[in-house]
């Protein structure tokens, strides 16, 4: 009973109790909500990038049969098709008595009806002749230059091999079929032909694919395209930036125009990238720590009289002829997502890489070192400048890499790099739209699995 009374009274009194929130509370709530939204966006973007990377990995691992190749089997063609538009580069192979058939730079040796085909990757395939006993002709269109075909137990009566160099972009399944017919001297429609179109695949796999397709008597064949996973540890060392320190815009403009010297800074990025390479394309994503140091900006007097700039961020004192220094460093954690295209030989190749880096600003330190006419210097932290930066940044990256393969699995790389902020560098309330552009060196070591 006593409790009930106590509760009721307390409840009644509490209902009456109101407090006025701070005058700027509503604005703060809206601002924090916006900030939270941006944070959520960053988190979602990071998760998205991670999931894309992960799902791509899983997809590529589970579906390595990315390439599908058509195999056309044509029997009993009634008439010779019109071949006028078909580019034909063919070479008829003659039979000899050796134990094996070797196609190497247009040379061939053959023996036997069943043929085992070997290639660099030691893929062994069997190629059967046509079912038509009367013809026993098999046409294989091979787009590679080097194939080794081993012997079989029975002799091959008539084996014809066409080599089509660089023709794949012009061919479709039917044209190759026609090509095969055209290149045969016998126009008897009872002849059976098996032709293969191999489109745009890796050099090392072309012959294998062709052979496997013929061997399995399939109209389509999928091969396992090699997918490489890699882990890179990299370092970006910035040689030059179009520095921007976030101080007053008007003053900065004057600084860029007239009054400043930009010393080489010590900006760098350290991080790792997990990569997927498919054919010539690569997708990399990872994490990095990014430290940007606008090492020293010397603001010097000029003939226009910098004394007029007094009170603009306290950068320049009354007298205009003292040197003042901005010492600033920004730290980011970033999540780069990079897309690359590689060309070149096995030992040395070249990659053009571009992408985005989602950055989260972890630390801002801006110090103003000023001196007065008496030679006293002052080092003051400037939070007004520190607080100008957006917590979340988006940076673009473009780099050209020269890769040198030390071993099959390890390579080192290096090359020029440029990074630039594409998002809003400063908070929305500031009108400044300037943002740094960096030019530097990108180097690292890559482990390929």
């Amino acid at each position, binding site marked *: 009973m006593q409790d009930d009374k*106590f*509760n009721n*009274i307390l*409840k009644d009194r509490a209902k009456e109790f109101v*407090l006025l*929130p701070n005058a700027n509370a*509503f604005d*703060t709530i809206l601002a924090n909500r916006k900030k939270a939204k941006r944070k959520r966006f960053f988190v979602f973007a990071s998760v998205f990038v991670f999931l894309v990377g992960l799902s791509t990995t899983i997809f590529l691992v589970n579906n390595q049969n990315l390439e599908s190749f058509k195999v056309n089997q044509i029997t009993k063609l009634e008439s010779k098709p019109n071949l006028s538009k078909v580019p034909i580069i063919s070479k008829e192979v003659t039979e000899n008595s050796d134990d094996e058939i070797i196609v190497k730079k247009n040379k061939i040796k053959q023996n036997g009806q069943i043929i085992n085909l070997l290639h660099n990757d030691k893929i062994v395939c069997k190629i059967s002749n046509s079912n038509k006993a009367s013809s026993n002709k098999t046409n294989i269109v091979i787009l590679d230059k080097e194939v080794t075909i081993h012997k079989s137990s029975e002799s091959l009566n008539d084996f014809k091999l066409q080599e089509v160099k660089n023709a794949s972009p012009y061919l479709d399944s039917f044209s190759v079929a026609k090509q095969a017919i055209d290149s045969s001297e016998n126009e008897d429609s009872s002849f059976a032909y098996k032709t293969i179109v191999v489109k745009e695949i890796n050099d090392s796999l072309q012959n294998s694919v062709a052979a496997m397709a013929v061997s399995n008597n399939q109209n389509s064949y999928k091969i396992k395209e090699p997918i490489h996973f890699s882990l890179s540890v990299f370092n970006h060392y910035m040689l030059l930036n179009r520095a921007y320190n976030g101080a007053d815009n008007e003053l900065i403009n004057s600084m860029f125009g007239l009054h400043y010297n930009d010393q080489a800074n010590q900006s760098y990025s350290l991080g790792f990238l997990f990569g997927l390479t498919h054919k010539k394309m690569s997708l990399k994503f990872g994490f990095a720590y990014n430290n940007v140091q606008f090492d020293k900006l010397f603001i010097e007097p000029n003939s226009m009289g910098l004394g007029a700039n007094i009170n603009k961020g306290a950068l320049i004192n009354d007298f205009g002829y003292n040197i003042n220094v901005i010492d600033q460093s920004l730290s980011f954690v970033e999540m780069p997502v990079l897309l690359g295209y590689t060309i070149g030989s096995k030992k040395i190749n070249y990659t053009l890489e571009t992408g985005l880096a989602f950055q989260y600003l972890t630390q801002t330190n801006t110090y103003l070192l000023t001196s007065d006419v008496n030679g006293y210097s002052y080092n003051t932290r400037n939070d007004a400048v520190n607080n100008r930066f957006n917590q979340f940044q988006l940076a673009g990256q473009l780099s050209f890499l020269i890769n040198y393969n030390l071993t099959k699995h390890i390579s080192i790389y290096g090359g020029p790099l440029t990074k630039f902020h594409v998002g809003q560098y400063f908070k929305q309330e500031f009108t400044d739209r300037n943002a740094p552009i960096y030019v530097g060196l990108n180097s690292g070591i890559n482990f390929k699995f």
Partner: protein
Amino acid sequence: MDIEFKKLPLILKHKKSGITDHELVQRCIKNDAVAQKILFEQYAPMLLGVSFRYANLEAEAHEILQIGFIKIFNNLSKFRFESGLATWLTRIIINTALNYLKANEKVKWEANIETIYENNDFVVEQLHQIDLKVLMDCIQQLPTGYRIVLNMFAIEGYSHKEIAEELKITESTSRSQFARAKVLLEKKLLTLGFDIKKYAGR
């Protein structure tokens, strides 16, 4: 439990604005800044009073209010009008306050060195006579565990079972926390010179 707002001057303003809760909510969902401000102005004082009772300090109460309102604006679309808007908002602020306290301090539920004694002569009626701000300050100064249970049981009307489930403590702990809170509250008021009996009849 629907709270009566007739006593609050801001509710009059709400009535003056001529916008129903339903309309207000719909506009807030569409991110109408004007509506959001109206909602804030209408309910923030009451909700700040709620968060004040749970917080350790007034500054914390303001912070809880801000966090709570961000949640409110983000989740208004989930409000189904099955209860009063004020009830729903209060519930969010209470949850926010509980989460805030859990995140920022280790709430102790055990009995402390305070001597527990039953004061059957506690003149509860006299609580009416005490200055409201002083009373709320005294509640705020209670140890966190006591304060939470006192607020939830005595003011919000939760049962000890509900409190136990909400705070993941036992019912008996909740009861003992409440009993201690009551005793300590009386002691605090007396320490401050507010002899309840003295104020009786004022």
